[in-house]
């Protein structure tokens, strides 16, 4: 076997493993969310399928795959088919730039535990997270239903309120690590994670990614109390499942990004780097679920006010203060 084909094989293996782990994790995150929310409400949650209900995601998958796939007759068919993919694919693509472990050495060659070590990884993430909202907007538009349309509009309006502060909160990270490359950002946090230097940026980023993955204090595009299910009201079967799994992949990916940017990525004592990365990421996932069990939904204008009048100015001030501090030291 030539060295080149071995490289290809290792890369394909890594790719398949990452893909499999992310999808399985997303499915089990749905299960975990149902269990944890049940505990918050003094219930037990799904515990019938398999031991402790662990086969529940499989049962859900079978249910979604065998359900009737309804397309509203007035819907814009092509866009209607396209939207779920546009919601799920950017989410999983973002994971490509996240380093999830220390580089391995196999057969005398370095195997970096990141799918694509882009030198503009951070910008790649920001670009893809902007594309992801097209799934919401197109899905809401193509369904030809007033609830879906309102959900799609809200998704767009939400994007312009949180995305600016999300991008601005990452500028100090770039200033500190002097790189857009996520591997370099993790390497810069070998001794001290950036959350110590940038607690404000961390809080702004955390709030922004909650809005980015459309979770409960900011789940305005879905808002089942007001808009039935918002942009995916008209979706059924596996198309709905794709939206759904995209949301949970987003949780994992954004948790991984918060880990990478602020908690030192895979750095940590004693345990293996991959374990540290998973623990930190899952801690974020748990926090999102916990938050869903705790907070009520914000009103539409409250989110806009909060994004534009609080988060963005704070992020700007934070950038100036960081620059001033960097110039002094």
């Amino acid at each position: 076997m030539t060295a080149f084909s071995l490289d290809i094989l290792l890369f394909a293996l890594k790719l398949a493993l990452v893909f499999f782990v992310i999808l399985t994790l997303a499915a089990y995150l749905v299960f975990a969310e149902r269990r944890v929310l049940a505990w918050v409400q003094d219930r037990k949650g799904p515990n019938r399928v398999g031991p402790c209900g662990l086969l529940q995601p499989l049962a859900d998958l079978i249910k979604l795959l065998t359900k009737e796939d309804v397309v509203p007759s007035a819907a814009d068919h092509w866009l209607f088919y396209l939207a779920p993919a546009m919601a799920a694919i950017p989410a999983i693509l973002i994971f490509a730039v996240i380093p999830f472990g220390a580089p391995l050495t196999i057969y005398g060659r370095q195997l970096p535990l990141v799918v694509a070590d882009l030198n503009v990884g951070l910008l790649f993430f920001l670009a893809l997270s902007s594309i992801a909202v097209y799934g919401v907007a197109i899905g809401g538009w193509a369904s030809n239903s007033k609830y879906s349309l309102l959900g799609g509009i809200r998704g767009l309006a939400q994007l312009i309120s949180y995305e600016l502060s999300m991008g601005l909160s990452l500028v100090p990270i770039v200033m500190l690590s002097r790189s857009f490359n996520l591997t370099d950002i993790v390497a810069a946090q070998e001794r001290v994670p950036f959350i110590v230097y940038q607690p404000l940026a961390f809080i702004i980023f955390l709030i922004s990614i909650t809005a980015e993955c459309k979770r409960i204090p900011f789940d305005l595009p879905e808002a089942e109390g007001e808009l039935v299910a918002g942009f995916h009201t008209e979706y059924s079967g596996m198309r709905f499942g794709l939206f759904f799994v995209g949301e949970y992949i987003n949780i994992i990916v954004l948790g991984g990004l918060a880990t990478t940017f602020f908690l030192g990525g895979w750095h940590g004592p004693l345990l293996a780097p991959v374990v540290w990365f998973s623990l930190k990421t899952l801690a974020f996932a748990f926090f999102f679920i916990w938050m869903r069990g705790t907070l009520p939904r914000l009103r539409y204008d409250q989110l806009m006010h909060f994004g534009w009048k609080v988060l963005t100015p704070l992020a700007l001030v934070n950038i100036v203060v960081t620059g001033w501090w960097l110039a002094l030291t």
Partner: protein
Amino acid sequence: MSFFSDTRAILGGFRVTLAHMLRKPVTIQYPEQKRTPYPRFRARIVLTRDPDGGERCVACYLCSAACPVDCISMQSAEQENGRRYAAWFRINFSRCIFCGLCAEACPTLAIQMTPDYEICTRDIMDLVYEKEDLLIDGCGKDSSYNFYKHAGIGVTQPRGEGQEESRPLDIRSLLP
């Protein structure tokens, strides 16, 4: 300052949900665990017998009249000795709302509620209970009560033999 009090309120909410996460769930895992209903729980309806083993029901239609959903129907008949009984008696449990008004209305304590709440079936027609399904061998809640001993004047026993009944008086003996 409202910023600090708001932050404290939000964090307090997180504390409460965390405390509930660690609390024991109140769920009763139904098919495996069953709660024991109280003796006066209102579920499946039965027809009871008097202490002598006879049917208590005298087919007076009061239960049927009291029933707000009209799920009780019957046909009255009379034995040779004048005792009334139900030729057939039917309760449609798919309609019954287990309000207990029939049991309250019954003058002979024949119709009674039991705590047996597990009567669901696959076929809705199985929920139509006939008299032989409803009739039980015991007396139910009031084991000593026998309607005819109290009020069945001259029907199943000679006049004056009942518990709360005086001997018939020979009115000629009262003449001055």
